């Protein structure tokens, strides 16, 4: 009996020891099966090159977004185009975007993907060794720039404009300035603009004066890009003093040359590009948002007929020379542009002509150096028309000058997604009663709808439709 017990106990003991020993020695390794074809983050971000690659990943989204997609949706909201033959886009055109609209939903996710990727770079900057102070400044400056560009795009497309309420407390967007996996609340438009300005001011102070033009060109932002974007932001806010000042800084830097061509999407116009989406050939092509939607056969984006009728007799306007009416006079007539017919091209997001237009208008609005406004607008007019009949003389009244500047702005920036924001600025800041094919500038559906997944207990989406 005693023998038996000992025998049993010893076995039990050995077995238990073996079990525990085995368990402790190899547990974690035995259940560690990392995904074979992907690199775990901890191993992926170690050098300055890694960080630059990740930053390029963010630019990849910036490029996909601004290579025509963003501009096209903004034009759909406005009154430069006619009703498209596409269900998703027609909802945008009709100012009745449903939260299931996959085109606008995809657009929204691209905006925030670019922001997330930029934030991710920022979150890993201290994990990287061998980064010089200048390099670090540049990278952080670019991160803030990308973030500001994304937020500015989102707040203008998905929320009512700055000035819609007196204190700008109306619902804006989620402001993402850090990597997070938690849903964020919807901030007011005022707070969103404050965040954008704060990021751009930081960029302005950290970004370099120039990049190696041969290899990098306008593909990466400089200090001037930050200033140019600030000019846009303040202009949209109706802060014309600051807008004019930033535009002036950019113009007077002389880093950008006013081009002879009216088509800034043509290589001859690249000298004006402050920040652009760059295409490097047919494979690395980022201009599809323009070339696919405007060019082939019967394009998705056709010009608004009323706008065409009001312009088509200005025969001396070279910019209209890029437009052609197909099946003219017939019932199936449509007007398309030939501006984007090239296989690939660089797409300017910030360019010198915009700066001239902003400075010209801002100086008139602040009644400061109006002579400069006249010079600026005349430079644009002289380039656009084959004769001098449209040149503005120095005796012109401020209000007449403003009309000329705004009329030129619409044609100059046609299809670049500017018009809807112009209408809203004039509505919200200048209190003009403006309509976009019959819908008031501030009706509830004249902004894009968020995808339904955005809705959480701390984020209310926009009302659907409501423009009559």
């Amino acid at each position: 009996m005693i023998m038996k017990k000992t025998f049993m106990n010893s076995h039990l003991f050995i077995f238990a020891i073996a079990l525990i020993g085995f368990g402790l020695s190899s547990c974690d390794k035995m259940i560690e099966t990392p995904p074979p074809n992907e690199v775990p983050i901890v191993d992926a971000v170690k050098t300055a090159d890694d960080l630059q690659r990740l930053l390029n990943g963010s630019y990849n989204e910036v490029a996909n977004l601004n290579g025509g997609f963003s501009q096209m949706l903004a034009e759909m909201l406005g009154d430069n185009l006619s009703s498209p033959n596409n269900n998703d886009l027609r909802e945008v055109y009709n100012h009745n975007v449903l939260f299931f609209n996959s085109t606008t939903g995809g657009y929204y996710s691209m905006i925030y993907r670019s922001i997330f990727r930029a934030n991710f770079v920022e979150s890993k900057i201290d994990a990287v060794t061998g980064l010089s102070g200048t390099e670090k400044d540049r990278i952080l400056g670019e991160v803030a720039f990308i973030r500001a560009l994304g937020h500015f795009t989102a707040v203008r497309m998905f929320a009512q404009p700055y000035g819609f309420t007196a204190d700008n407390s109306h619902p804006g967007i989620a402001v993402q300035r850090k990597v997070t996996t938690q849903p964020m609340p919807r901030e007011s438009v005022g707070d969103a603009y404050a965040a954008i300005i704060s990021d751009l001011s930081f960029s302005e102070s950290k970004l370099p004066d120039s990049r190696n033009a041969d290899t990098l060109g306008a593909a990466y932002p400089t200090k001037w890009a930050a200033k140019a974007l600030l000019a846009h932001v303040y202009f949209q806010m109706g802060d014309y003093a600051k807008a004019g000042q930033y535009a002036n800084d950019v113009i007077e830097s002389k880093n950008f040359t006013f081009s002879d061509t009216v088509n800034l999407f043509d290589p001859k116009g690249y000298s004006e590009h402050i920040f652009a989406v760059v295409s490097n050939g047919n494979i690395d092509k980022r201009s599809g948002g323009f070339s696919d939607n405007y060019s082939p056969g019967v394009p998705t984006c056709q010009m608004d007929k009323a706008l065409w009728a009001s312009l088509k007799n200005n025969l001396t306007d070279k910019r209209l020379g890029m437009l052609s009416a197909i099946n003219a006079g017939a019932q199936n007539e449509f007007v398309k542009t030939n501006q984007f017919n090239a296989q690939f091209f660089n797409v300017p997001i910030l360019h010198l002509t915009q700066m001239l237009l902003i400075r010209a208008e801002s100086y008139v609005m602040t009644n400061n150096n109006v002579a400069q406004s006249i010079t600026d607008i005349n430079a644009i007019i002289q380039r656009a028309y084959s004769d001098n009949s449209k040149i503005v003389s120095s005796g012109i009244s401020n209000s007449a000058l403003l009309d000329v500047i705004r009329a030129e702005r619409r044609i100059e920036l046609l299809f670049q997604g500017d018009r809807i924001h112009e209408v809203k600025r004039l509505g919200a800041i200048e209190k003009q009663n403006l309509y976009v094919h019959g819908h008031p500038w501030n009706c509830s559906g004249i902004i894009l709808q968020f995808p339904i997944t955005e809705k959480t207990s701390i984020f209310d989406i926009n009302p659907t439709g409501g423009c009559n």
Partner: protein
Amino acid sequence: MQKKLQFWKLFGLFVLSIGTAQITFAQKTGAPSKTEIDTAATPESESVGDVIIIGYGRQSRRNVVGSISTVTGKEITELPTQSFEASLQGKAAGVQVTVGSGMAGSSSLIRIRGASSISAAGDPLYVVDGIPVTQDFFMNRSNGSNFGGGFNNNPLASINPEDIENIEILKDAAATSIYGSRGANGVILITTKRARKSGLKFDVSSRIGFSMPTKKPEMISGKDWLQLYQEAWENDGRTGVPDLSLIGLRVKWGDVQNTNTNWVDQMITTGVKQNYNVGINYKNSKFSIKDIFSYDNNGSFIKGNSYERLSNRVNFDANPVKGMTLSVSHSLSRGTNNRVDAAWAGGLGSAMSTMLNIYPLEPIFDSVSKSYLTPVGLQTVRDLKSYRTVETRTINNASISYEITKDLSINASGSLDYMDYNELIYEPAKLINYYNSNYNLKGNAKWFPTWTRNYNYFVTMQWNKEITKDHKITTMIGNEYQNSLSKSKYVENMDASQPVDQSGVAYDPINPPAGTTSTWIQRYNTPYNWAFLSFFGRFNYSFKNKFNVQLTSRWDGSSRFGTNNRYGFFPAAAFGYIVSEESFIKKIKAINFLKVRAGIGKSGNANFDNYARWGTVTPSGNLPFYNGQPQLAVARLENPNLRWESTVNFDAGIEMQLFRGRISTELTYYNKQTSDVIMNVSIPVSIGFGSFYDNVGKISNEGLEFTLKTVNIRSKKFQWTTNFNIARNWNKITSIGVYSPDAISGGTNDTRVVVGEPVGTNFLVRYAGVNKQTGAPLYYDLNGKVTSKWDPSNRQAVGNILPKAFGNIANTITYKNFELNANLYFNIGGNIYESSVKRQMSLVTDWNMDARVISRWQKPGDETNIPKMTLSTFNHGSTTPWINTDLWLQDGTFARLRSLSLAYNLPKSMLAKSKFDNIKITFVATNLLTWTNYTGIDPEIARDFENATDRNMSGSITYLTTPQEKSYSVAINLTF
């Protein structure tokens, strides 16, 4: 309401009939003699005297404290089903089995005690002879190919039903928590047959049968379709000869006036089923061996579709020295699924959708554009396209157990489940030319192989001690490790003159034939690798053989759990009290056995994405470059907190045998609270990436299960027994964190997660009927106001996919050598959403239309639910087509005569002089009759999907789903 009444009437009738029978019987025979009762009281499976398999051990049913149902091998093989798990339907209370469809090899959807998962797989864990087997229903999805035919490969179909001795279904925590993080959705333990009888014995059986659909899809004729088009044309204010180009057709109105091809009939045939088995059984005092060789060819009613399985199993047991048992099991099977496209991918699905009956059998060729004006005929596709999957699978186990002393024994077991799965597609030039007449290559061959090797070992030690006669202790501790690796690739040859040899020998993608390199594509997919390391233990204490206590616990570590949660702990405690052992019960003659049991414990579900916890980077998007510079992006953020779904499960039951076994009954209550539910949340995209696996939800399941077995009549020549079971489940999502009902990434489905509503809630705009004057559809807004505008903001919870209750009534009548068996399966409640019908009955488009469209609105004053025909979605008050409303939602209640069989055993007297021990002939029919108010094809629906979320949430959402099959077979069994 009407439907329910109808059903309960049926149920009432049944109860009444049993009652009457009982009374009649009692009056006629008085008290039965003892011998009579003993035989009667021993139904083959669940008698209290049985020993049953529990996790890592056995136990006498009498002492079991958990909720476990047993299904015998005989019950599994008696029906010619697509796969063995379909035979579980109706066999156990609370085990919901929805047979996939009539497609050969289709998988059934099994849910045990409701639904407690959303994005993690909700299926139970399948364990064959000790190894959790490969059970990925979405295999090959990284190729985008497995689902190419609109059909999920069923990894269980290659398991031979003939191999199965018993299936134990573990339902509550007391039973499942020994499986730790993988037990929460129940465990299905499969034990294969071993040699039982001494000497050499043979079992030979064969079955031959036919199959057809339970109901054929009814589509309108070509002429009717043209009439509807014309009606829509005119309703929209157009005049003149209708122009079909408005909906993208290229044929002219005048060219198709006289064509009427019934594509549904072209797809359907009478399927032929064959099954042959040879079993060899040898046993002596030293060793025993069982060999089962089977061939099964299960042809479905879809032309060209069959599942062929050739399999062999050898189970060997030996006692080399005293106290030692050595067991080796090996099975090898090859399952060949001759596939046809289904659902949205083609075949019968196309016959219900894109193949208009105005299209001729052979497409019309246009010599000007040098292209076809109509699609290629469905049977031409079927005849030309070669499509099959070939799966070779082997499941092996070796175990050794040794009794060190009378009380102490150890057991070591190792298993390997290896699967070689090949999907093979070949489209010859002739077929491709129909799609693109400029194609000048020989043909397109695709090969998508997946190899999965899955092994485990476990070591257990048992110590059983009878301290005194009244106090018995049984303990077990163990350790288990499992590792599975699955590799797959994509191989395509666009200039192939013949199909790819399934072994891959026909061509070598690494060294392709000279000059053809550009037509080859080969791509390796991300391999899937996962592992579990576990420690577990069980302690049982029995007092006077009437009071049993059981404590179990398991620690599970898994490769899927985040760094902050590498190990989970899953304890359970339960007791059983055999009250009938007490003298005060013993006095009551009517009660032969009475047990009460209760248990509480925790188990988990870890069946989710293998790599969700890892934060990784990959080259992003469409290009590896930005401005010529290399780029990278975060594919996923790390989730160090990701962990198992955790279910706390309370279970209490009472088991009784009355009148010396004439009545046995069991009533169980359960309450399952699941937290940390894994959701593939479509996080607000403003976070910066699309979706994310996270533990966010909470789900509650509560229910009652009732089983009643009665021996209604028992005499020497005549016996009638009834088995009845029913389960009622209450399911509710109690939390989804901050998210909205639309936050779950699923994609194709139309159900949502709504707090306070069940899993799989139909979240739809309510339909308010048709404006009698204009024929336009009307909708309700959230305030109940009628509007003509369809707005998704007005969606609300209007139904859900889960049945309220389901169960089965089985009656067996034996008369002399005849045995008649009838199974009536019923499902009460649960909605069916006809997702494809919204396109078959509303707008007139390039789709075929459902015959029910005949009741549409045609002229002012018509009272109907189907709106007027139109070509424009704007006339239905919507900016997008195919809008979801509850017009397409129906009650899924049904009852069906699942099986009816008649068997005849040749009398022993006839066999006495022959070598045969037994000869049995059986006629069996399945799905003979169905009672339902559902107006669609078949109310039993388990649609095939691309991911676990849709499988959990939208099982009964039809989309061109193939109907169920009805079959008639005759079988013969010989034993000698």
